C-alpha cells in the first residue's frame, strides 16, 4: 500500500516532506528501541509512542524502517524532524492511539512483520 493511503487511513499528517513511491506491506509497533530492532528483518512502517532522536537513529541503523508513525499526537522536536528529512525517513503523526492505529492498518491488510523464533 502507498504511504499516502496509510496516512489517510489513520487521519495522519506528514511532519516531513512527502516522499513518493513508498510502498508498505508490513508494520510493527513498539516503544523500546531494542524491540524495534528485533522486529526489523523486513522493510516496514514503525508505529511508536516514543519520539526522541533515538527513534530516528534506530530507523537509520535498521535500514528497514521506511516511515515512522507517532501516535497520540506526539510531536518530535524540529532537530529530530530535520534529521529524519536528511535520512529520507518520512515522519507522520496521528491523534489515534497505538491500538487504534494498529487496528486500522491491520483491517486494511497491512501485515505484521514475520517474526523468527529460535
Amino acid at each position, binding site marked *: 500500500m502507498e504511504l499516502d493511503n496509510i496516512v489517510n487511513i489513520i487521519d495522519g499528517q506528514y511532519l516531513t516532506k512527502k516522499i513518493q513511491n513508498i510502498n508498505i506491506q508490513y508494520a510493527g509497533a513498539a*516503544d*523500546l*528501541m*531494542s*524491540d524495534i*530492532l*528485533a522486529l*526489523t528483518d523486513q522493510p516496514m512502517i514503525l508505529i511508536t509512542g*516514543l519520539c*526522541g*532522536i*533515538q*527513534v530516528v*537513529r*534506530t530507523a*537509520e*541503523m*535498521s*535500514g*528497514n524502517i521506511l516511515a515512522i508513525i507517532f501516535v497520540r499526537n506526539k510531536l518530535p522536536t524540529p532537530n529530530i524532524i530535520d534529521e529524519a528529512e536528511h535520512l529520507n525517513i518520512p515522519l507522520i503523526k496521528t491523534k489515534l492511539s497505538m491500538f487504534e492505529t494498529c487496528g486500522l492498518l491491520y483491517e486494511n491488510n497491512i501485515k505484521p512483520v514475520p517474526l523468527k523464533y529460535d
Partner: protein
Amino acid sequence: MTDSDYVRVKFPIEKDFSTAGNASSGLKKLLKAVGIPPEIMRKIAVASFEAEINAIAHANGGEMDVLISPNHITVIVKDNGPGIPDIKLAMTPGYSTASEEVRNMGFGAGMGLPNIKKNVDELKIDTELGVGTTLTFTVYLNKKNEST
C-alpha cells in the same frame, strides 16, 4: 594479503544519550563508502548500535574499534563499566538491569545482547566485575571464508 587490504577505524562512545548512535552511524557510513552489501551493513549497524547503547546505559561510554578486511568485519566495543555478573542471564531476552531513567528514553528492553547475537556470526564477551566489558563480534562477508 597485505596491510593495505585492511581498514581500521576507532570511534569514541560518549556518555550522552542525546548523541547515542553517533559511533554506529559513523560506522554505517564507512561500511557504505567501502561498498559493503546492504544486508551485511544492516547486521553490523544493528549489532554495533546495541553495543554502543549498552556502553552508555551501563558504563561511562567507551570506544568502538572496527576492523574491515576482505573476508570479515570485526567490531570491538570496550567500556570501563561495572562488568556483567551473569552473562547467561544477560543473554536472556527481556532481562535488563537498565535504570528507570534509561527505560524512559526507550532503552533497556532486555533485547540488546540477544539482538547482537542474532545479527552476527561470532560473539565474544569478556567481562570483569568492577573493571569493564569488551564485546567482540564478527560478521563474515562470504560465509565460505568463515573457517579460513
